[in-house]
Every structure is written in C-alpha cells, then in structure tokens.
C-alpha cells in the first residue's frame, strides 16, 4: 500500500540519444500527491528531458515511469492524465483565447454549456476573465502565459508539468507570476512538477527541489536542506554563493581548514579524513581589528574582548576566529559583498550589512552550525587505468606518456597498471597543440586559495586539476603531465 502515496514514480530512467550521449542517466524520483516539486539545473542537465519523459513526448531508453502506480513508460502523451505548460506558451494562433482553453474539453466532446462554465472558471483562476474573445497574438507575454496555464488546468489533470514557464517574462512579471503560481497550487491541490534553471524560483516555489547535472540527480531535498546542507560541491556551488574549502575532519564535530581548527556539528565522517567545507557568505561575521592582530595570531580568543565589544552583533564565546584584509567591497542593495584575503592566501566571500572598505583589517568568525561538511568526491590523485607499452611508455587516457624508468621496475610490456597523477601536477597550456592531450574546462570550483577544475578530454575522460591560474568555463586547453608526476601502481 505504501506505493499509493506516490502519484509519480520514476524508476532508474535513462535516456540515450542517437549520438550515444546520455541525457538522463539512471534517474529515480518519487513525487507525492499534491507536492510542488522543482527540477533545477543548468541548461543541458537533462531536466527538460525528464519532464518530457513524464509528459510522454520522449520515451525513456530504459527504466520505467509510473503514474498512480500504472506503468506509462510507453503510453502516448494524449492518454496520460497530465498536462503541460510549455516554455514558449505554445498557444494555438488560429484560435481565440476561449477556444484555446476549450481545446482539450472539445476533444472530450463535453457538453457546450459545461465547456463554457469550465473555461470561464479556468480563466478566472488564471486572472484572465474577460479575454475570451481576444486573439492570442494580441496578448502580452504574461497574459499568454496565463492562458497557457488556464488551458492546462481546465482539463483537471492530476499532475501539472511546467517547463520553464516564466523564463520568457521580465523580472517584475516573473515575481508576480511566481506568487500566482504558488497560490494556484494551493487552490487546486494537484501535483506540480516545475522545471527551471533559476535557483531563486526553485527555492521560492517548491516543497522539494531536485538538483540535476549532466543527466544525474545531485540532491533531492527541501529548499532549506538544499541551501543549508548541500551534499556535494556541485549543489553548493550552483545554489547561491558559497565559500568552498578543502579541509580535514579531525574527529566528530571538529574540522580543520585554512590552517585552523573549528568546532562544527557534523559527525560520521571518520577521523583525519579529507572533506570539503562549505560556508555561506552571509554566515561569516566580520569586525574591524587593529592592524597587528592580522599577522601571526591564531587560535581561539585571539581577538581582545575590547575589539568584539565594539561590534555587538558578533556572537560572543569560544569561537575560532581568523583574520584578513578586505580586498574589495561592492554594494548589493540589501548588503555589502566583500572579498577578504587571509595572510595564508585564502580568499573568503562575505556578505554583511556593514561596509568595510578595502584595506580594512578584519576578524572573521563562523558559528559551528553554519559550517557544512561534505564528503570529498575525489582527493589529491587522479586515477587512470593504464597499460605498459613495449617502448617503455605507458598508455592511459587514450594517449602515450613518458614515465620515469624507476616507476616501471618490475613491470613488463602489456601489464595492466593503475596510474596516479596528483591534481597539482597536471599542467594546462593555453594552446591545445602544446599538450599531449587537448580538452575543455568543464567545471570550475574556487577553493579559497586555488581553483579546482574538471577538465574533459576530447576522448571524454574527466581529470581534476588544482591550479592558481584563472580559466574560464569552456576554455580549450592543452594537457601536459611531466614524467616524474606519473606514478605507476600494480592493481591489487
């Protein structure tokens, strides 16, 4: 019986296109009746494909989709109890507003009087009363969107699918429509599945957010979960602004990063294990300190109580504090956004209601509960499958590489080996021709004092690179790995 509580179940759905690329890769998702679920992700992450699979416009390559417990994986769209609001409205230009909204009801051959009543009610719901006779191309974008919503809800679907419905509207209109959609959801009580690339929209509207990237679901949770407790770097980076740093979990509730130890509230990451630490820019407290404090002083209570007393809003107590100098300060309307550089070379993004001008020496502090710990997905080394070649080179990443002779001691040509390369030891060149391999910068993460890049080679392999150089998303690079950076291990 437990199954009945889900109106939609997506079980291990994959969608592979003809060119072999996966738009969806083993995606599973359950949606409860009456829920407002948002699928959020950058363009090309597969969110629209997932919605289209649920609507029936695309058929999943594998896996199943259940609607009210019934397998609809291969059911054509017109037989599914769902309706869609399309990104570009898709109103019928040859019909007026009334006939657009009545389209579905007329197909069902309902009584004309009933149709009239239902259409009027749907238009009223969408705040479009009085527009029945208008031609759709005389309506504004927002009005067309409302007609599109009326046209979908008039059929009383169990699930309403919305494919970036507000993306074509201007900012002000978008905010108004967000509120209207939320109200509509409450009034109708049906399930909404909403696709967007706008994180603010997702956080505002939904009961649950599904964050997707590259055809995978990265995290499912309530808006507060997603924001406050991101489970991986992608979510932390994609949702809101964040400081992401590499750290070490010393023991439960104790973490080390940027050269200091901090109390935190997370447990279960083991002892002395590498972790990623996320701190939201609004969670760091700032106060002004005398210049000499910045150098050297570390550890709890390094700031004199006098400094702190001046700043009432900074929490008092045994918090770990650290120091830096303000590099830049930008007014953002509600708050100021500052970049603060520590003596160790870590940069923090901080939002505060108070302005600290560039050059100001400041102390920083974060509450233990505002430190979010994430398991590191990969650490220090790239690992590749390789093979020793006759000419004393090693084959991996679909290329030949020179290695130091001592690495190959005890190996024979043809041996399968594990190749290890530190993130730091991969050099990126501006010109693709200068590298043994060429690839593209695929994902960039700023880790406070260095960039952590994901490089996708032309053959489709991913490798991780730590660098201090600034690259842009999509930059073409040549990849160089020096012989001494390559370590060869036997497979165990």
């Amino acid at each position, binding site marked *: 019986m437990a199954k009945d509580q889900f109106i939609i179940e997506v079980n291990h759905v994959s969608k592979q296109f003809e060119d072999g690329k996966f738009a969806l890769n083993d995606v599973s998702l359950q949606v409860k009746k009456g829920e407002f679920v948002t699928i959020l992700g950058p363009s090309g992450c597969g969110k629209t494909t997932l919605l289209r699979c649920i*609507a*029936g*416009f695309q058929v999943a390559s594998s896996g199943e989709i259940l609607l009210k417990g019934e397998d609809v994986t291969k059911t*054509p*769209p*017109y037989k599914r109890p*769902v*309706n*869609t609001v*399309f*990104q*570009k409205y*898709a*109103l*019928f*230009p*040859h019909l007026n507003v009334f006939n657009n909204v009545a*389209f*579905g009801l007329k*197909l*069902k051959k309902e009584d004309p009087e009933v149709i009239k009543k239902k259409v009027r009610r749907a238009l009223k719901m969408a705040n479009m009363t009085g527009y029945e006779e208008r031609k759709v*191309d005389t309506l504004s974008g927002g009005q067309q969107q409302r007609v599109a919503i009326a*046209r*979908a809800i008039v*059929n009383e679907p169990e699930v309403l699918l919305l494919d970036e419905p507000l993306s074509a509207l201007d900012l002000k209109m978008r905010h108004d429509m967000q509120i209207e959609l939320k109200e509509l959801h409450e009034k109708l009580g049906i399930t909404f599945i909403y696709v967007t690339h706008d994180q603010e929209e997702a956080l505002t509207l939904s009961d649950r957010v599904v964050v997707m990237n590259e055809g995978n679901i990265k995290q499912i949770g309530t808006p507060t979960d997603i924001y406050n407790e991101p489970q991986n770097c992608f979510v932390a980076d994609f949702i809101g602004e964040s400081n992401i740093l590499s750290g070490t979990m010393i023991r439960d509730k104790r973490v080390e990063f940027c050269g200091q130890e901090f109390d935190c509230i997370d447990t279960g990451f083991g002892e002395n294990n590498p972790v990623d630490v996320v701190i939201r820019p609004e969670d760091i407290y700032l106060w002004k300190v005398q210049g000499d404090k910045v150098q050297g002083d570390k550890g709890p209570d390094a700031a004199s109580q006098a400094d702190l007393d001046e700043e009432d809003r900074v929490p008092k107590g045994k918090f770990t504090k650290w120091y830096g100098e303000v590099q830049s300060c930008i007014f953002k309307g509600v708050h100021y956004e500052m970049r603060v550089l520590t003596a160790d070379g870590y940069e923090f993004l901080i939002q505060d209601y108070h302005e600290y001008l560039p050059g100001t020496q400041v102390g920083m502090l974060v509450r233990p509960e505002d430190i979010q710990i994430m398991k590191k997905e990969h650490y220090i080394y790239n690992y590749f499958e390789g093979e020793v070649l006759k000419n004393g080179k090693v084959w991996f990443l679909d290329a030949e590489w020179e290695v130091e002779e001592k690495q190959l001691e005890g190996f024979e040509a043809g041996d399968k080996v594990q190749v290890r390369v530190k993130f730091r030891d991969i050099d990126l060149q501006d010109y693709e021709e200068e590298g043994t391999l060429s690839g593209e910068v695929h994902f960039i993460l700023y880790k406070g004092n260095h960039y952590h890049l994901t490089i996708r080679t032309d053959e489709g392999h991913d490798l991780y690179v730590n660098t201090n150089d600034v690259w842009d998303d999509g930059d073409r690079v040549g990849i160089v790995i020096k012989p001494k950076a390559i370590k060869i291990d036997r497979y165990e």
Partner: protein
Amino acid sequence: MNKLLQIVSSRRTWAWPYILFMAMFVVLPLILVGVYAFTDIEGHFTLRNFAKFFTHSEAIQTFLYSLMIAVFNTAICLLIGYPAAYIMAQEDFRTPKVMAMLFILPMWINFLLRTVATVELFNMCGLPLGEGALLFGLCYDYLPFMIYPIYNTLQKMDNSLVEAAQDLGASKWQSFWKVIVPLSMPGVYSGIVMVFMPTVSTFAIAELLTHNNIKLFGSLIQDYITTTDLLNYGAVLSLVLLIIIGLTSFFGDDDSAGGEKGGLV
C-alpha cells in the same frame, strides 16, 4: 555637386527605371487590352465584342472546361503535394534537402521541353494522348508550386504546438486536423493560387499533350489574337480571364486568421 549626390543617393531616383519598366510592360498592355476590348476593328467604341462572348457558346464552354481542368489540376496537386510537403517537413525526416532538390530539378529545364518529353514518354509507353495526358502534364509542371509554399509554412511551424495538442488529449490524427491543417492554410492558399491561375490560361501544354484536340481558354485567346480581324474579340476573352483570376487571388488574400504567410505569394 552636393545636390547631384543627393539625387543619386535618393531612393526615389533609383525607383525610376522600375516605374518605367512597369509602365511599359504591365500597365500599358493592360490598358491596351481594355481599349481593344471596347473598340471594333476601326477603333470605334463598341460593346459588341462582349455581347458576342456571352452568346458564343463554344467560347463559354471552352472557358468552363478550362476552369474545370484548372480545378482538377489544383486538386490533384494539393492531394499529392500536401502529404509530400508534410513528410519533408517532419523533424525526423533526414533528407529534406535531397527531396526538395528532386522536386525542383525538373524546373531547371524549360517547361516546353519537358512537355515535349512527356509526349514522347506517352508515345513510347503506347498511352493515348488526350485529357488524361493533359492532366498528367499539368500536374507534373505545377506540382512544385504547390509543394513549396506548403512545405514552407509546415517547416516554420512550432513543433510545440503539435505537442500541446497531444498533451491536451488529441491523437496524432486529431492534432493533424485541428492544428497542423488550419495553421498550414496560408501555404495551401498560396499553393492553390500559384497552380490555379497559370493552369487556367495555359495553352502550349494543352496543344502538345492533346495533339491540339482539346482547346483550353488560353489556346482560344491565342487563336483570336493571332488572327488580325478578331484581335478585339481576343482582348475581351483576355479581360474576362483576367477578372476571374483577379477574383481567385482575393480568395487567397482573405486569411488574416492564418497569421503567417505562405511565402511565395
């Protein structure tokens, strides 16, 4: 100097050659047709030519027959052309360019040559020339003019409209009739006008494909105009044809409902 430059660079100046051309080859001939229709051979005003047409049963019959042939040809072109255009406009159709090329390839050759070739084809296969051959030849010549405008409107149509129809409960068949067909009407109108009008006034194709056995209205006009003393009567027939064709083009113009235009007209 400045003034000269102004004159040279003005749009009005550049329009003159075209205005002159139109006046010489479009407006003047039309006026001449009108003048000849209302005068007798000596140049005196008369309505006798019109009276002759309305009592001349052979001319009226030929006229009606030509209209009928044109209607048939247009209908056949539409029946063959619409599905062809529809198939070519499908997203998953891989070779629309090749298909379009195949349809347009015969148009590289002069239509008289093609018609002569058609005659030879019929002779070779031992098929009789006549009405069937005439319709075949007309259809062969005018089919591309039907396919193109329809293909254009279908191709520009937003596929999400079809998806929206299916989403609202329309089967493939229903979404075709309720969305695709109404939205492609501008293309259909263009196609109809482009096939119907030239078919009514065709004459060379009819002569060749029926061994001059079937006379179309175009042939009739040609006969009279080339006979000196019946030139004025020929002018009347031309005027009648012109008016009828003018009326059909109004039929195509009246579709503000369709939104987008077909492209060729």
